[in-house]
Structures are given as structure tokens and as C-alpha cells.
């Protein structure tokens, strides 16, 4: 059961509709100038490939657009309860890893960090959670889009807490396929290897997805919604693929992610739980009052990928992507005044070429929409 279904934040939106007079406006909080400089650690010990990776950074001011400040030159070690330790290697930009560790899934592990400023940080000892396989990733059409679900179960009944991460990849095309190109005023054929019409784009889901079967008699997760794609989205225009990674969590880790989700993703109505400082399982040995953010956990990862073709969609979702692109023309004798940045679609005029069709680059080069021309290895 999703405990979220018991939360109450729809009320506000309901009231909003009932009265039809509510509104949501952007709000700029009073300038919070204090620059808190807390440590943020994100660590995972993968017992399948026997690697441990830890990313360490510092908090930034709320409205800062800069990338987080990485914590450099820290001494990071993985320690087990018996005092064995492995020192992680710094990979730059706050990332530390160690491969080929002998992981004993019976043991508990922790991360120990000593920063350059000689501050000591520890995580709690965590146990290694083995993740059961994903039974299926499926999709169901809804009125206004596609919903994706994950199903899993653990016959031993020991997993109970789950976290999912999703990665979407989809194939799409620009509005117009270009078969000619303009190079230094000369028009020539665009070969297939140079096509800029079809792209693949990959995005990593940023929402926290956690679920539990703690209230069920069996350790079964049934139809947990992991993603939603609105109808008419370019994601569904040709072929769409969803990769779901599943990770078993300890109860503490589940509570951490759930709280993080509730405080940073929910709507903030009066019926939502009040936001709180969500810290994780790290603490500062130097200054215990200082919050340390982030979580360290260990275990295995299971993954499963599905594909959805445009032609698999039910009729009401099978709508082509709307495009606002318009075609323009360039006469042959004017082509010399255009630069290489102008993208051409094709020539017109038979038998003698009169001119060339062109459009905004956005309508011709699919990469402008964020994808790459390289077909992913898993695409067939």
C-alpha cells in the first residue's frame, strides 16, 4: 500500500476548484543570506560489482544557480564493524570510489570522512540489502496519458522497503528531414551518416520513488506507479523506453527518502506534514550539533527496461506531435549570401532546381531539442 495515498494534500486543490478562486503565485522568500556550509554525502556500496562510490559536496545558498561546491582532498574510508577499512580514491569533483572490495553481506559497513579542515564525519553502520528481481515494468493507458508501473515481490518477505530510479530514453525526429547541406555557399547531398533528423534523448528521473509492503501480508509491490507520460508528448512520438532500477532499502533508509520526498516534493498545503530538516545517517564527530545531509546505504541493484512503440498505443493516445514549424524558401541565386548555420531541407524545382527549402534550425536539427544522434546500444 502506498502510504502517500493517506496524505491529504489534495484538499487544497479541491478547495481551489470548489471555490474556483484560489491561485498559486511565485513567491520569493525573504532573502536568506546566511550561507550554510553543511556537508552533503551521497554514498552507495554496491555488493554486486563490489564498488563503493561516495559523492561529497557542500550546501549552497538557496537561489544559487552554481553547481554544488565539491569537497576536495578528503580522506574517505569504508569501514566494517571489525575495524577493517578500505580507503577510497578521489576521482575529482568530490567523487570518491573504490572497486573490487570484498563485500561480506553479513557485515555492516560505514563511511568515515576526514576533510582537509580536519573535521571527522561518520555514517551509521548499515547492513547490505539484497534486492529481489523486478517482476515486471508495465504501462497502462489512462485518459490523458500513459502510466508506468512496477511490480515486484520477495518470496522470503525480508525486503519490504523499496526505492526505484527511472531513466527515460526516447527516439524522436525533427519536423523536417534534411537531405542536403550548405557548406561554404555550396549545396551538397547530406549522406545518411550525416543525418540530423533522428535523435535519442535520455533523462534521469529526479523524483524520489519509494514504496513499502510493510502493511501487507506478503512482500509484494503491486502496480506501483513510477512514471507518467502525458499524451501528445514527443516522448511517445516514435519509440519510448523506460529503465527502472530497483533497490532494497532498510527501514531507516526508507524513512529518510520518504521524508525527503515529503518535504521537497509535496504541495505544501495546510494538510501536509510540516517540513522539517531532513538529515540522513551521517553525523559529525567534531561538532555533533551540525547537520550532515545525505545517506549511505549498501546492497544490490536490479533493473528492467521496457519499450513502448507509437503503434502500441491505444487510438486515443496515438496522436502525432504537433509542430509549429514552417517552411521557407531560398532562391538559388541568393544561396551564396547564407552561412553554414542555415540548414536546408531539400531542393525544389524539377527538372531545374529553383531554390531550396529551409526552416528554423530547431525544426531540422533534432539535437537542438536535447538529444544525441548516437543510437543507444540497447536500442534495436
Amino acid at each position, binding site marked *: *500500500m502506498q502510504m502517500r*495515498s*493517506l496524505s491529504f494534500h*489534495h484538499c*487544497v486543490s*479541491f*478547495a*481551489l*476548484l*470548489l*471555490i474556483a*478562486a*484560489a*491561485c*498559486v*503565485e511565485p*513567491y*520569493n*522568500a525573504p532573502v*536568506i543570506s546566511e550561507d*550554510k556550509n553543511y556537508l*552533503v554525502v*551521497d554514498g552507495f556500496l554496491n555488493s554486486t560489482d563490489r564498488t563503493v562510490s561516495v559523492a561529497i*559536496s557542500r*550546501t*549552497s*545558498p*538557496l537561489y*544559487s544557480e552554481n*553547481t*554544488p561546491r565539491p569537497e576536495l582532498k578528503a580522506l574517505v574510508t569504508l569501514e566494517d564493524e571489525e575495524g577493517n577499512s578500505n580507503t577510497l580514491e578521489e576521482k575529482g569533483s568530490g567523487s570518491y570510489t573504490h572497486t573490487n572490495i570484498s563485500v561480506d553481506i553479513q557485515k555492516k559497513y560505514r563511511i568515515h570522512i576526514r576533510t582537509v579542515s580536519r573535521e571527522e564525519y561518520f555514517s551509521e553502520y548499515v547492513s547490505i540489502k539484497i534486492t529481489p528481481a523486478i517482476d515486471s515494468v508495465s504501462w497502462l493507458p489512462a485518459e*490523458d496519458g500513459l502510466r508506468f508501473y512496477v511490480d515486484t515481490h520477495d518470496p522470503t518477505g525480508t525486503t519490504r522497503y523499496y526505492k526505484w*530510479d527511472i531513466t527515460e530514453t526516447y527516439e524522436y525526429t525533427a519536423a523536417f528531414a534534411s537531405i542536403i547541406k550548405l557548406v561554404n555557399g555550396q549545396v551538397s547531398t547530406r549522406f545518411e551518416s550525416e543525418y540530423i533528423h533522428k535523435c535519442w534523448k535520455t533523462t*534521469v528521473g*529526479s*523524483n*524520489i520513488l519509494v514504496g513499502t509492503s510493510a*502493511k*501487507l*501480508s*506478503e512482500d509484494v509491490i*503491486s502496480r506501483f506507479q513510477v512514471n507518467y507520460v502525458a499524451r501528445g508528448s514527443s516522448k511517445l512520438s516514435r519509440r519510448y523506453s523506460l529503465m527502472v532500477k530497483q533497490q532494497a532499502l532498510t527501514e531507516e533508509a526508507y*524513512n529518510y527518502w520518504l*521524508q*525527503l520526498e515529503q518535504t*521537497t*516534493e509535496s*504541495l*505544501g*498545503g*495546510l*494538510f*501536509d*506534514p*510540516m*517540513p*522539517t*530538516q531532513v538529515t540522513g545517517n551521517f553525523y559529525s564527530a567534531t561538532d555533533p*550539533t551540525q547537520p550532515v545531509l*545525505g545517506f549511505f546505504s549498501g546492497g544490490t541493484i536490479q533493473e528492467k527496461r521496457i519499450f513502448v512503440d507509437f503503434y502500441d498505443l491505444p487510438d486515443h493516445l496515438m496522436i502525432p506531435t504537433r509542430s509549429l514549424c514552417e517552411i521557407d524558401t531560398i532562391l538559388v541565386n541568393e544561396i551564396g549570401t547564407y552561412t553554414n548555420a542555415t540548414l536546408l531541407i531539400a531542393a525544389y524545382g524539377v527538372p531545374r532546381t529553383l531554390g531550396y527549402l529551409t526552416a528554423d534550425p530547431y525544426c531540422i536539427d533534432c539535437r537542438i531539442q536535447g538529444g544525441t544522434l548516437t543510437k543507444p546500444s540497447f536500442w534495436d
Partner: protein
Amino acid sequence: MKSLYLLLSACFCVFSASPLSAQSNTLINGNFKNATFNEFVAAVEEQTPYRFFYKTIWTDSLLVNVESQNKKLSELLDTILAGTDFNHAIDEAYGVYVTKGRKILTQLPPGFFEENTGTTRATQTFDYSDYERKEKQKKIAEAKLYNIGARSSNLQGNATLAGNIRHATSGEPVIGAVVFVENPTIGISTDQFGYYALTLPKGRHEIKIKSVGMKATQRLIMLYADGKLDVEMDEDVTPLKEVVVESDQDMRVSGVQMGLEKLDIKTMKQIPLALGETDIMKVVLTLPGVQSVGEGTVGLNIRGGATNQNLILFNDAVVYNPSHLFGFFSTFNPDVLKNVELYKSGIGAEYGGRLSAVLDVHSREGNTKKFSGSGGISPITGRLTVEGPIIKDKTSFIIGVRSTYSDLLLNQLNSKELKNSSASFYDLTAQLTHKINDNNSLYLSAYSSSDKFRLNSDTLYSYSDQNASLKWKHIFSNKVYGVLTGGFSKYSYRISSNEFPVNAFTMDFKIQQLNAKADISYFPNSKHTINAGLSTIRYALAPGHLKPEGTESLITDDAIANEQGLESAVYISDNYELSAKVSLYGGVRFSLYQCFGPREIYQYPSGVPREVNNIVDTLSYKTGKPIANYNGLEPRFSVRYLVSKNASVKFSYNRMRQYIQMLSNTTAITPTDIWKLSDSYVKPQTGDQFSFGFYKNLKGGLIEMSLETYYKTMQNTIDYKGGATLLLNHYIETDILDATGKAYGIEWMIKKSAGKLNGWISYTYSRSFLKTKSDFSSETVNGGEYYPSNFDKPHALNFIGNYKFSRRFNFSLNFIYNSGRPITLPIARYDVAGSRRVLYSERNQYRIPEYIRTDISINIEGNHKIRKLAHSSWTIAVYNLFGRANAYSVFFVTEGSSIKGYKLSIFARPIPTLTYNFKF
């Protein structure tokens, strides 16, 4: 010209004085210098036919110094007796009676033989209009002398007069009417049954009766011994030009009670409100010292107390959830209501069980004379009330229903969000009153409500509130009466979902209480009013039961153990008029509480944080076996000192104890909050409040001013760990924290209760803080320091104004200003697991923007003919006239790679409503 005037007036004198001065020898001539009264009497009796009757012992020290040239005896006696407590009376047989203290009437009052002449009056052909007839009856009743008790010559000592004050047309009791005599000043206000008892010196008195919205009346009585006097009062059908809204003006200054706000339904109906319906909770919110966390929530925070620290009583039955539709409506049907009393401080010993305040709501009694009804139609709700006698003047009923057609409305709104949403509620209120005889009355009251809603999902929420009470009032004697009350309250909710068969579930919560109490009021003499009583409440709580729904469901049956408790109390209090200036109230309540099995209690070792991992043992308690016992004294004390006739200062102290609490870590109360009884881990809450006030009436009570300050401390109140889980938590004691609270404030109010323009302005400065205490940092909030509570809004300014252009046209304006409530804001951002997150500040360190709102309403009444089929009125109201987008909440979300702050406002634009009300 001037001389002519004198002449004329002299003539008038002669004629008007004719009955007694027809004989010239009744005029007295003589010079008395330091003469004894006896000498004066001898001289008069010699000159005139007058004969004196008096007690020589009384008058032996009285010296007479008058000069008389053809003066009348009455004039002379007026001069002689001026400044003494002697009275004189002269009858037609020239008897002169000199009495001490009381005056003798020498004529029978008009109407003395009324009973005998009743038959002849009935045959009169003159057709009085309703109004005139009432006026005449009233005049007759006021002029008539009522003999109380068996006639006797012994007029020494005191006797008690008691009775009921009732509404002349509906027979309803008039609550809070002031019954008083002016000399000596003795007065009392009627209780919730309209009952009063007044101890007076035996003899003749003029009893005056005043009440809000009723015509003041009076009765002449001759009090021989203890006896009864029931009085019927007429409603104040004010003439077109005059508008008088009276209140208990005298009580505010002269009563010993402080921190009391009384509102009757008439006042409440004038205040403009959103959604087209009078809502007592919203009106109460405009009073000083009362706040809520936001618009559209019903929870009241009174003087820095949490919402669950208010005892909400409806006809003596406890109301657990006073809201419909998430708090946009309160559960009280305005047509059935009579009045509401809010006690913020100086809470009497008869009330107990909650820390902060008492909101005592009374419904009306049905009309005992004729059938009538009323109702209203607004954009969201419809309501109908019917009342009438079952046995005329003995048994009456009132029944009111209210429902919403919001479902219909929702279906009309063509929104995809609402495709799968629904919301509806209804409530039913009924009261039956039966007068067995003069000394025994029965009152049966019942309430039932139900709410259902579904919000763009397959999860259905439903909740219902039911309560009933039966009261038996018995008058033992004029000085003693008792009330026996039995009551029942139940609140339950259910959440269910069947979206996916595997996860289909229902979740139930239920709280139930049975209570009984006996109260006795004793009026030993005019100086004391003694109240005493005992009560007991049996609680039964089912704090959560998750069940699978359907055969495919894999949900495990999971029930949180039921909780049982018994709360009993005994109290006694005395209201004592020490002197004309000083009045005291002292009371003490002793409450004891027991939480008992069957239940299992987890044991946590001391010295470590209370966490699930630290459980060392589980104790199993058998049925009825006590788990925890608590008891304590709750002293209550008030004093009033009358600085002048129109000003007083008051001080009060009260301690309260609370054994049941609501657990909620959302900002506003929701229907799915749970209640919890005190047990081994959750200690009973205690609160102490000191309050000091200054009260002044200006312009003969037309303008009332009050200034009250308070300081309050609270022990063992509830706070929560960050991210606490409250629903279906078997280890709830590990998520809740023991907190202490303090609150203080100053409330100023100026109120004009009468005149074309009436209303009030109030300003409150108040603070409210909480602090958690623990040896472990995981069990503290904000490092164990005091921090502002969710409802700490320092400044609050309210203006409620009402202007009557004419009897049919009435304009009202509200203006509300509040500081923003405290919130926890993000102070930094960080990246974890590939996305951007925010770090929140310590709890409640920032505030949302301030709240400002202006509302208007116009009330148009139909014509004011008293006799017509149905009376109707239209109310046009605009809520939030200027459409200010007041922040309801502020929240931050991660959108892509950036953090966005949003402000949510509900009622972000003017909300006009049109309501049609009728009465038949």
C-alpha cells in the same frame, strides 16, 4: 404676562390637589425648631384630622426643624424625613403611616382584581392588534402586584424568588437575562435553562428584567416567603427608526467572570461571510484572542493554545470535529443555534478536561406555542428547520437539517481534476424539551453528521460525528436546583481505496465517550451562589484499524490496540459578593484519570532515547487493569473590584488538566487526525493562566471597553519529531515529544452594541511558544529552545461594523488584519541522488506574509408586517472585497534543477454570494 402664568399655575395647583385639600383644615401652620417628632405629630393632629401611625422608638432621635404657612402635610413630611430611611404614606381616611425602610401602599394596585374581571374583558369588541394587545398585557403585568408566598405579617428576614424567564411567542427560555432590583442592588442572570433565583429582603420590590434583543420588563412583587415568578418577555420589535442591540453590558463590568465572550445568533447573522452561511466558528474568529492557522480551517487557537485544547460543547455533549468540507463549514447549523459562549480565562470549576478554552454552544428550544420553520438557500448548502409544540406549553421540538449540493456543482465544473472527485455532507440537529411540571424538565438533544469526499483518486474519505445528551432538571426548592446529564459522543472516520484489488483497504478510526454528570446550584442568600457537582467520562478509542477489502487484497489486518480511560471529577465553587465593590469567585475541581487495559505497553530503558530499537520489554495489561493513574487539583479563582459604577478591574487564575489529546503534525487540523488518551508515556497536560483585565462602560453602557492581559504556561503538551508518523503507528510514543509551552498577550476591545452604527474593534498582541525538553538531541526541536508555535501571530486587528440604514436595509463591513503565521523555510540547497533538494531551517523561524481581508454584506429584509405567511430576507455578501491574494501557505518545490518558491492563496479574488433565507 408673567403674573398671568403664575395665576394659571396656581389655579392648576388648586384643582389638581383637590381630593385631599378640599378641606382647608388639612393645611398646617406652625414653626418647629428642634422639636421632637412626637411634638410635631401632636401639633399636626391638633390642627387637622390626620392621625399618625408610627413607632416612637424609631423616631425618638429625629428632630423637626420646619416653618409652615398653610403647607400640605406630605410636603412637610418630605422635608422632615429627607435624608433618613423613613417613608410616609397618607391614605384617604387621613391615616399617616411612617415606616422605616419600606413605604406602605395605601391603594390597591391597578389590576388587582384582574382575575375577576377577566370574563368581562373577553367580551370586549375592541380588536387590539397583536402588538397593541401584547403591549397592553405587558402593561397590565407590569402594573400588577404579585404576591409571592403565603401572606403573613412577618416581613423580617429574606426570602428567595425563583422562576423561569421565557420568550412570550416561542416559549423558549431566555438565557443570560439579567434579573435585578435596584435598591438594594441585587441581581443575577438566568442560566442556560432561563432559570433564576434571587434572594431578597421580604417585602415589596420592583423586579427588573433585561435581555439582549428583548423588551425590558418589570414586575412588582410583594415577597412574603420563598416563591416562584415566571416571566415572559417580548421580542424587541423595534419601531422603524430605532435600532437597539443590547448586550449583557452590565455583566461585562460588574460580573466577576472575565475572558468571556457571548454571542447570540442575531449578532452572528449580521457578519458577512464567505459561502453564504452564518458560521459561528468564523464569527468567533473575529473576537480578540482567537486565531486560526489559515482561511478555511475550523480549528481555533485561543490565547496561544492548540486546537485540541478547546472544549467544544454542543448542548453539553463534546464535539470532536467541528468541521465540514475540510473546514469550510462548521458543523453547527445556524438556524438551530441560540448562542455561543467562549470562555478564554477565568473558566469556572464546572468545566474541565481541556487546557485552553471552553466554547459552549446552545441550540434553541422548539417553539412551545405554535409551529414554525425557517430555512435558507445558498450556492453550496441548503437548510431547513421546523419547530413547534407537541403538547402546547409543555413539550416542544426543533429539528434542523442541512446538506450540500456541492456534488452537483462539482459535476458541472468541467475539469479533469474533478472527474474523479466528489464531496458532500449533511447534518441533523434535534432537540426535544418537555416540562413535566413546574419543578421538573427534560431536555433531549441529538446531533448527527456525515461527510464524504474523494479527491481526484479512488481513495474515499468519510467521517461522521454523533452526539446526544439527556438532561433532567429538578428544582428542589427556590434555593436549590440540580441537573442530571447523560451524554454520548462519537467521532469516527474511514479511509478506503479499491483502485487496485491487491492493495484495496479500509482504515477506520473511532473515538467514543459516555459521560454522566450531576450539577447542583445553591443560592443560600443574596451574597452567595454555590455550584457543585461531579462528573465521569468513559473513553473508548480505536486509534486505527487497517483491513483488507475484497478477496484479492493482500493488506494485512493491522489494528492499533484500543485505548480505554476513565476521567472523573468533582467540583465546588462559590460566587461571593463581598461588598458592593468586591466580588469573588473561588472554585476547585479535583480530577482523576485512569487508563486501563486490555493493552500492551512497550518498555523503554531510561538513559537512552525512546526508540523502537531500544524496546526492552512488553507489559501486557488485562481488561480493566490500570495502566496509569493521574489526578490533580484544579483551582479556579477570580476577583472583581468595582472602581466606579462604570468601571472595574478583574483578576483571575485558573488551572486546567487535559487527559485526551489530538495528534496532528499538519499545520491545520484534518478529519484524519487521531486522538490519544494519556497513558504511561503521554502525560496529562496541565495549564495555568493568570489574567488581568480592566473594563469600562461609556455613555451609559452604550460603549464598552475592555483591556485584558494574560500569561499562560502549559506542561506536558505534545510536540512531534520531524517527519513523525502518526497514523497506524504501533510505537507512537517514539514519535511524539513532551513539550512545555508559554503564551502571553494583551487584548483590547471597544464595542458599541447599540445604535444605528454598531460593532467592535479589537486589537491583540499575543505570542505563543513551545519548547521540548529531553536529554537527547533526537528528542528535541530546535535544540530544546523556545520556538514560536504554528499559530503564533503577534498582531491581530479586527473591525466588525454594522450600519442600519433602515429596518429593512442593513450594511456590514469586516476588516481583518493578522500577522503571518510562522513557517519553516528552506535556507540552503544541495544535490543528492542526482537531483536538487532543499534544507529547511529550524522549525518556525520565518513567517508567511501578513493577512488582510475586507468583506461586506448587505441584508435586505422583506416588509415587517408581523402577520404574514412567510418572512424572507436576501443577503448579498462579498468576501475578500479587494481580492487580495493572502498567502495560505508557502512552499518550495524542486523543478528540474532549480528550487521554486510558491505562494498558495485560496479565496484569492472577491467571492460574491447570494443567500435567500425564509421563516414561516
